[in-house]
């Protein structure tokens, strides 16, 4: 269960704006977080609070396969991302690192920047506390849910391989 202030962005938020390639020479999550979103929102990296929620439109996380993108968002303090849809590598990467993401076009459309939103990742229930509106995100298939519950792909694999 997460509750936080919303940072809202548009459609096709690409991994180059989430974390520009000029900062990929460091794999350190703290370094990456300090430059997260800076090419489209200079205020984000210093104003984001632990537990805040990011909301995007269609095709969130498109472009490069850099896992640095969900790592940067997670390390910046964002608790989860809600989007109308996710680009597939970003989607995989988030699941694999155990970072909660929710696909919900209605919520992505209605929720506004600065709203206070609560999210129950287990049930997929999203409540915009500012407006009172509620939304249901698509549930993960059990296989993927299992990876997330194990804490990501490698812990899942470690257990499977014994």
């Amino acid at each position, binding site marked *: 269960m997460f509750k936080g202030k919303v940072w809202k962005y548009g459609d*096709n938020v*690409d991994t*180059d*704006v989430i974390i*520009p*390639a*000029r900062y*990929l*020479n*460091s*794999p350190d999550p703290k370094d990456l977080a300090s430059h997260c979103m800076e*090419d*489209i929102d200079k205020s984000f990296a210093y104003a984001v609070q632990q537990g805040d929620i990011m909301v995007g439109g*269609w*095709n969130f996380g*498109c*472009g*490069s*396969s*850099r*896992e*640095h993108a969900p*790592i940067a968002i997670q390390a910046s303090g964002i608790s989860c991302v809600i989007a109308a*849809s996710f*680009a*597939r*590598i970003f989607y*995989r*990467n988030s699941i*694999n*690192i155990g970072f909660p993401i929710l696909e919900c076009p209605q919520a992505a459309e209605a929720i506004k920047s600065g709203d206070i939103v609560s999210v129950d990742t287990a049930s997929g229930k999203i409540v915009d506390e500012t407006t009172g509106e509620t939304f249901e995100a698509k549930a993960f*298939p059990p*296989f*993927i849910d299992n*990876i997330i519950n194990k804490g*990501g*792909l*490698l*812990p899942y*694999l*470690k257990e499977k*391989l014994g």
Partner: protein
Amino acid sequence: MGMTMTQKILAAHAGLPEVHAGDLIEANLDIVLGNDVTTPVAISVFEKAGFTKVFDPEKIVIALDHYTPCKDIKSAELCKTARDFARKHKITHLYDVGTVGIEHALLPEQGLVGPGDCVIGADSHTCTYGALGAFSTGVGSTDMAAGMASGQNWFKVPSAIKVELVGKPGSCISGKDVILHLIGEIGVDGALYQSLEFTGEGVANLSIDDRFTIANMAIEAGGKNGIFPVDDVAKDYIQGRFQREPVIYEADPDAEYTRTATIDLSKLEPTVSLPHLPSNTKTVSEAVGMPIQQVVIGSCTNGRISDLRIAASILNGKKIADGVRCIVIPATQEIYLQALQEGLVEDFIHAGCAVSTPTCGPCLGGHMGVMAAGERAVTTTNRNFVGRMGDTKSEVILASPAVAAASALAGCIADPREL
């Protein structure tokens, strides 16, 4: 219901008689790839999870291609991490400065990937090898770590879009125009989670380099992979390169596609993508005259020998425009040597171009041609997102090698058919 090429390859690698779109499967991997940006993150995940052995040191490829020769101390540390790991685990295919090329030109050239393979790479343009009838897809670093540890990974079986190619491309039309046109038609998420399955009599009219360029940019339409049938052109290419036995799959006649997109190659115009999305396409005639300060001819999309030949045929004996910097980057050492032997490098240098050792460099705004605010480039690379090649106020226009070379001479976007 029949299966697509992609579905057949995935079924075979999962040990299943058949798979259906939407199935979640675990499949065996023939090759696991990483580069200098993504491999260090994979190593850290691999070691943190307590793994001490890779599944097969001959099936892992590490290509240090993005920031090499290292542009700064931090990138040197990334390369050292990857290099040390490769030595420790006796990874056969480590490509470092001197042998490295841009990974997606390098792996097919070195015969490391071929028909029927199931390949993951921690680089989004891994989808390139679909040109050879392989299933190959870009993944993240944790996926690479899982692949290195177990030789397996999970996949959601994709549904497919059938791309029917008909006709013969006209003068100055190449694979880049085909894929930019398609992305313009279906959008940057038009093939999200899907495979793009290219078919039709027009395939025979495309060179293997054209097909690499097309499969390479499937990701720019959101696709999981792009794949071509294995015909004589593909078989000729792998002859003498690919060391394993190729496994050739064909789509079933009753395979299911969510839609069909038909492209008449004879009707295509040289196509460009204006800032800031690859789907923002125009025919070159609609963009002619836009001033530029930089041209980049190279990348995993268009740094192959046929790309360099096209560019050199346009630049040969001429001078690039005042105020334009033209950077030419052969994608691999083999291509570089070939270009030297054919006299292409001389043509480039006489025309006023800078020729670089293989590197991804400027494509991702890494090094070797980063732009300042207010500058604009026409490039043969694959992405034109905000800030992709430098300052957030610089602009990238995607184009074919022919359009890029013609534009370098004109100092603005130019139509190569009008030279």
